């Protein structure tokens, strides 16, 4: 809110048309709001759009890259596992091809073959020859498995049907995890035998352990029923259910988005190992693989938020500045129009009053001469010259004519100085000329008027017409503030060596502190109820400024006000104003 207080436009709390008799051209609040929205829209919508597009594209690209890497890893590992199994099956095929049944029935030969297999491949545990009835006729290895009958076991039936068999990892009779690879060999007499080898799972597990999975992923093999065949990091131990759905069979490597055993979003790559019951799975948590992207994303979003905030502050600040100036310009336009209207009105009044005064002067002159002639005639006749009452009556007529003449002269003097008239000003005369207009009102309202102008105040050159207007406005305002029986003082004093100050002091109602700051603003009036337009003081202020002076006010509610006009003793040079005419016509 402190930021809003700083950025808020000057006109925000003063809606146009409220208490203002003269309409502005624009609704500035609406202009401000529209400008902010429009500029913000134009600036931010493309930015946000491009950012959103870029975000999506980048995220998709990164995801695509992750999927590709996972797919490659799964494919490569699948090949390794497939090769592992097919190589050992091929070795058994070679053995049965290369050695006749008689040789395989020789325990020493079988023992030799097992030893060679261990040396060449590693991992072979035992070797057995199973006849067509399913009985293991010959066996070499650490277990007592000679003579075991496998005829009712699934693997036997499968190898009989397919010629080769790879088991999943199981415990069996030996109670140790192992894999069986069995190959069938047909004999010339149409019978067959099966060479059966058991492999421990150490090498098998090593293949999985050696997979380097980025992003803390989990890798393991499951069988077709979803049981783990190798240890996993977070999906369970061997023979446990993996906790994930068994993926559907596809020939090629697949990478999908799913959830890991913990329910977290995950990238799952899998592949069915051909000619085996195994499914290779690599599971990576999305949060882990996308960690760098998420970090970068957070930074970008933070940068975007800061940028947008900065852009908005600048937009609001610049818009406020511009619309404030627009408002100020429009206010000046309105003020100028009314100053012109005021000046025109004043000029009209001036012309009218000049005409009226002039027209009155002629009959006054006639009355004066006629009364004067009567007095002259009576004065020359002794019988009338001593008649005090007669002479007194005529003197009364002449005195009244003189009073009228003073008034008309004063009015004509004021009206004539509507045009610029630069001349020497005696402050006391100026004040008394203006007070002359208001003497009667002061008498009727019992307002005590006091004028104090020390002798040392020099005559100074200025515009008499403007000075009369200034003093008349200030004294009129003082009268409006005074109640009957109040007091008005008009005092002049030197303000330094180069200026004179005139104080108009009243003990009237005073001005509230909140109004003091605005008292010279155009259209601000504390007298709207009594028809005040609020132009008097703002025009007075402008007139004082034109004379190179200053106008200030001090006031206390209930105690009164003091308006001080300070004027330079030397008028500043005019700024090439075409209406300034020192000749004064």
């Amino acid at each position, binding site marked *: 809110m402190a930021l809003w207080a700083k950025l808020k436009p000057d006109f925000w709390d003063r809606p146009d048309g409220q208490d203002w008799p003269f309409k502005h051209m624009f609704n500035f609040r609406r202009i401000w709001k529209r400008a902010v929205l429009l500029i913000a829209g134009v600036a931010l919508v493309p930015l946000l759009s491009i950012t959103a597009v870029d975000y999506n594209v980048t995220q998709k690209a990164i995801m695509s890259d992750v999927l590709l890497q996972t797919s490659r890893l799964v494919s490569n590992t699948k090949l390794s596992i497939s090769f592992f199994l097919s190589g050992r099956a091929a070795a058994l095929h070679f053995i049965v091809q290369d050695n006749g049944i008689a040789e395989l029935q020789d325990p020493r030969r079988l023992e030799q073959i097992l030893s060679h297999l261990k040396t060449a491949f590693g991992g072979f545990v035992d070797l057995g020859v199973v006849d067509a009835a399913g009985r293991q006729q010959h066996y070499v290895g650490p277990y007592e498995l000679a003579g075991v009958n496998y005829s009712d076991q699934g693997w036997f039936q499968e190898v009989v049907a397919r010629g080769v068999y790879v088991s999943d990892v199981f415990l069996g009779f030996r109670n140790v995890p192992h894999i069986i690879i069995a190959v069938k060999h047909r004999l010339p007499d149409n019978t067959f035998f099966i060479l059966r080898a058991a492999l421990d799972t150490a090498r098998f597990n090593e293949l999985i352990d050696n997979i380097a999975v980025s992003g803390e992923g989990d890798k393991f093999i499951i069988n077709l029923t979803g049981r783990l065949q190798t240890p996993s990091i977070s999906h369970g131990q061997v023979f446990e259910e993996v906790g994930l759905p068994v993926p559907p069979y596809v020939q090629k490597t697949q990478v999908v988005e799913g959830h890991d055993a913990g329910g977290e979003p995950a990238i799952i790559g899998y592949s069915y190992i051909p000619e085996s019951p195994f499914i290779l799975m690599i599971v990576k948590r999305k949060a882990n693989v996308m960690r760098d992207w998420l970090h970068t994303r957070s930074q970008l979003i933070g940068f975007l938020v800061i940028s947008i905030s900065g852009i908005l502050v600048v937009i609001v600040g610049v818009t406020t500045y511009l619309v404030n100036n627009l408002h100020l310009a429009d206010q000046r336009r309105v003020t100028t129009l009314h100053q012109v209207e005021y000046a025109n009105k004043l000029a009209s009044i001036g012309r009218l009053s000049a005409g009226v005064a*002039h027209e009155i002067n*002629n009959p006054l*002159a*006639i009355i004066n001469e006629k009364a004067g*002639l009567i007095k002259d005639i009576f004065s020359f006749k002794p019988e009338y010259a001593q008649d005090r009452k007669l002479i007194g009556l005529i003197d009364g007529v002449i005195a009244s004519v003189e009073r009228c*003449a003073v008034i008309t002269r004063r009015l*004509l003097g004021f009206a004539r100085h509507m045009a610029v008239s630069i001349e020497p000003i005696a402050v006391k005369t100026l004040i008394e000329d203006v007070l002359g207009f208001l003497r009667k009102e002061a008498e009727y309202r019992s307002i005590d008027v006091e004028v104090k102008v020390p002798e040392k105040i020099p005559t100074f050159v200025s515009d008499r017409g403007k000075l009369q207007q200034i003093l008349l406005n200030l004294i009129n305002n003082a009268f409006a503030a005074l109640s009957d029986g109040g007091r008005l003082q008009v005092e002049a004093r030197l303000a330094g060596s180069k200026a004179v100050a005139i104080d108009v002091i009243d003990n009237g109602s005073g001005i509230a502190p909140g109004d003091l700051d605005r008292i010279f603003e155009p259209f601000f009036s504390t007298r709207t109820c009594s028809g005040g337009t609020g132009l008097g003081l703002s025009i007075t202020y402008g007139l004082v400024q034109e004379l190179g002076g200053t106008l200030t006010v001090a006031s206390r509610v209930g105690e009164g006000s003091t308006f001080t006009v300070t004027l330079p003793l030397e008028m500043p040079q005019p700024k090439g104003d075409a209406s300034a005419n020192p000749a004064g*016509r």
Partner: protein
Amino acid sequence: MRILLVDDEKEFVATLAERLGLRGITADWATTGEVALAKAAESDYDLAILDVKMPGISGLNLEKLMAQQHPRMKFIFLTGHGSASDYHSGIAENRVIDYLVKPVNIEALVAKMQAVLKS
């Protein structure tokens, strides 16, 4: 001293002439510039007292015309405006011009006339 009074208000100018007459000052009067010029052509006046604003020939123009024809004549303007600017525009060298504001005080007028004639 012979005085010519010129003012478009007949009541004013005739009464003023009579008052001056009571004071021993011979004053002729006219209500238009044309009549004033004709009278000035017939008689020698020492001083002309002219109203500034008149229909037809204005006081200022009348003064210029009379000054051309009667170089030694002196002038006083009577003005209803009380401004020196009303007659300043007519000032020329060697012509003495002064002014009074209407309504005039007869004693002030007589004093002004004597001062102007002496200058």
